[in-house]
């Protein structure tokens, strides 16, 4: 028989306001096995933990139930406290009477009743708990960064500077990401390339950093400290060691009509290309889908003009398999498609563009060499209208429910730069709210209004109406004047919502990292663990976790690096002891369990067993506890009931069911 202590937390008024904690103590004390029950203001406080430890020592407790917040919050706290008092930590169970009870129920009597039942279930479980010993696993001292934008680059630099090997896997031919497409950055108007390029060079030159561009993560197995990852290095068709980056192949390539992704399709590139001048590595790739040589077998111009003999049409994709201790996701974002928002005439007029397209137009290396001009006729626009929140803050099924966070500031930036460079051009911004929470952000926005005379109109635009003369008519609300206005414009810029890179879903599935309904990766805790995934060993960097601007991205990238370094610095990790265990007397050696195990943790051995005095050799299942992650799939699959899960055994769960239904 266990000797159980029950500890009921008030959590200030978080629990005590709706649950009668005294009543819970009173009723829990009557449960079988309970020899001690008390309540306290804050069980997680030092004094609260001391109470638990004192009771363990004085009453010789063999089990502890803490009725408090979610075990996801403080299970570890209480288990450590118990361990310090000499109790096996796995003899502690939590009854979640806050998130699952006091916070969602209003009626005191009802909530108290439920809290008592939850306590009973936990007590019933602890009655069947057995001490468990965690094992150990090794840590591979190498990190993988998925995504080579500013988030990935910063994380890689920080981890590498701490002395660990880092691999960056980037899908496109060059690192640099979205930031490399930006012209200027807010709120200081630094040139984006000027501050990004040195970081790219530093990453490429770092002896601890290895960059795989034009590569994708194909398969991930293993677990924290010991991941095994397959990386597909797509065939570049150019030998990286031989290429000198002279660029002649690109000049001579006859296939010149391919939409240039880097310039958002606003101009064309060749089939052999580097995405932009500062690309790292400065080695082109052949886009095989559009290459004449690959399509027809004829051509081969690039090979003929290459002095270095670097062109290799026979190159094959290569799979690199590597072990990692930590993985950082830094997959970034894209702007949403605008096909559901054609009231803004994006697909009907060339002069309606997205902000990212404007970014390319404003850039000296962009499709118009940095001249602000209409894409339809090349004329300089005299009236420019910006529309905010296109696809952001939408609760219908056309857009995204969240605020994209960066648009208010980059629009102020665009407006200011245009007014500065083209004083004859009038700029109007239709906004719903101007959101500028950030250091020097509101001052920046006010500068756009006060110094640069940008006309901000509170109200959304209902329709952009192309005119026969090629201009645009913008029909919008002015909510301050309570008017509907028709504004003639030469160009309209849409602050298009951002969304996580569509590939992130595939990657999250490989990593078994959870993802929210908007495809942003979920943090382990929204406030206290914002750069970690709930899946151990997976860290989050940049917009893959939620919309953010460059300074925030860099800050988060550093934070993710520190978390990864904290992991890599350890030589060993203790493993979860809640693993499967087979009863060799019941096992009939059928292999069903091994077939459902996702980790290959179950093997079979011919073992001599003593079955009620009969000694014989049988084929029985054996669980490798270093590999077992404790999902329990095998326990249900096992037809003979031999397989059970420690810490969540059949008897324990049934005891909980019984206690709840009592």
């Amino acid at each position, binding site marked *: 028989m266990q000797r159980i202590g029950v500890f009921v937390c008030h959590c200030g008024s978080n629990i005590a306001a709706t649950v009668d904690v005294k009543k819970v103590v009173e009723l829990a004390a009557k449960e079988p096995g309970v020899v001690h029950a008390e309540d306290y203001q804050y069980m997680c406080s030092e004094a609260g933990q001391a109470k638990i430890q004192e009771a363990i020592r004085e009453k010789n407790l063999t089990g502890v139930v803490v009725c408090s917040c979610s075990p996801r919050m403080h299970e570890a706290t209480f288990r450590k406290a118990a361990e310090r008092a000499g109790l096996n930590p796995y003899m502690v169970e939590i009854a979640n009477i806050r998130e699952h009870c006091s916070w969602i129920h209003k009626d005191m009597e009802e909530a108290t009743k439920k809290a008592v039942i939850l306590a009973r279930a936990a007590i019933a479980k602890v009655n069947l708990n057995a001490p468990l010993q965690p094992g150990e696993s090794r840590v591979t001292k190498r990190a993988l960064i998925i995504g080579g934008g500013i988030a990935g680059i910063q994380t890689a630099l920080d981890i590498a500077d701490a002395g660990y090997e880092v691999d960056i896997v980037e899908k496109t031919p060059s690192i640099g990401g979205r930031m490399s497409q930006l012209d200027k950055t807010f709120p200081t108007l630094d040139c984006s390339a000027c501050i990004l390029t040195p970081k790219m060079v530093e990453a490429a030159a770092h002896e601890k950093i290895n960059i795989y561009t034009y590569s994708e993560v194909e398969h991930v197995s293993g677990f924290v400290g010991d991941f095994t990852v397959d990386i597909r290095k797509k065939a570049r068709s150019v030998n990286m060691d031989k290429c000198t980056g002279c660029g002649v192949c690109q000049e001579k390539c006859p296939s010149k009509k391919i939409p240039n992704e880097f310039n958002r399709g606003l101009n064309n590139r060749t089939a052999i290309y580097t995405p932009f001048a500062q690309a790292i590595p400065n080695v082109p790739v052949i886009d095989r889908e559009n290459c004449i040589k690959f399509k027809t077998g004829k051509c081969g111009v690039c090979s003929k003009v290459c002095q270095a003999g670097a062109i290799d049409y026979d190159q094959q994709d290569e799979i690199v398999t590597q072990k990692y201790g930590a993985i950082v996701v830094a997959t970034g974002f894209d702007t949403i498609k605008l096909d559901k928002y054609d009231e803004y005439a994006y697909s009907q007029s060339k002069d309606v563009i997205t902000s990212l397209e404007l970014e390319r137009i404003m850039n000296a290396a962009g499709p118009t060499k940095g001249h602000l001009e209409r894409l339809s006729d090349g004329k300089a626009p005299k009236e420019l209208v910006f529309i905010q929140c296109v696809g952001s803050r*939408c*609760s*219908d099924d056309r857009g995204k429910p969240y605020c994209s966070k960066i648009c208010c500031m980059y629009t102020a930036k665009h407006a200011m730069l245009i007014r500065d460079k083209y004083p004859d051009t009038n700029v109007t911004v239709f906004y*719903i709210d101007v959101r500028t929470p950030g250091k020097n952000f509101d001052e920046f926005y006010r500068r756009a209004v006060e110094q640069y005379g940008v006309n901000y109109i509170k109200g*959304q*635009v*209902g*329709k952009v109406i192309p005119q026969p003369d090629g201009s645009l008519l913008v*029909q919008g*609300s002015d909510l301050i004047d309570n008017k509907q206005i028709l504004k003639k414009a030469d160009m309209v810029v849409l602050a298009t919502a951002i969304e996580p890179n569509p590939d992130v879903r595939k990657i999250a599935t490989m990593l078994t990292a959870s993802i929210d309904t908007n495809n942003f990766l979920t943090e382990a805790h929204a406030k206290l663990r914002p750069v970690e995934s709930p899946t151990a060993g997976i860290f989050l960097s940049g917009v893959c976790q939620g919309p953010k601007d460059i300074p925030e991205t860099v800050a988060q990238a550093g934070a993710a690096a520190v978390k990864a370094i904290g992991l890599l610095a350890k030589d060993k990790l203790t493993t979860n002891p809640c693993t499967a265990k087979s009863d060799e007397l019941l096992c009939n050696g059928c292999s069903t369990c091994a077939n459902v195990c996702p980790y290959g943790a179950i093997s079979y051995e011919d073992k001599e067993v003593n079955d009620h005095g009969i000694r014989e050799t049988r084929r029985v299942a054996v669980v490798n506890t270093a590999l077992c992650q404790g999902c329990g799939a095998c326990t249900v699959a096992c037809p003979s009931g031999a397989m059970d899960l420690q810490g969540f055994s059949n008897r324990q769960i049934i005891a909980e069911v019984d206690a709840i239904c009592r």
Partner: protein
Amino acid sequence: MRNEHSAAEKIKEISGTNPLKCMKCGKCSATCPSFNEMDIKPHQFVSYVVNEDIEALVNSKSLWKCLSCFACVERCPRDVKPGKLIDAARQLVVREKGGDYLKADEIPELLDPELPQQLLVSAFRRYRR
């Protein structure tokens, strides 16, 4: 309306929309082809219902200027759909005895030989019980 609160509730019920979802972007008013004819503008309909100022609403000209063209319904980013609120307010009026906007005896002079039946039928349904 005798009781502003219950009238507001009735409008929410008939329209099936939740005006609290509104983020006050004004896209409805930006999109409304009847905007200039309306005394209470489409985006204001939402706040009138939220503030339970129904008396003013049902007496507004706007009830009879809405075309049910669904432009605001289609383009509302928050699923509030002011057009449905306007129609619900109109229902409150026409369901009251004597609240018809179109009287039978004024019809003959509105007719012309080409006028399609559809026009009369539609107007009847929108304007009368």
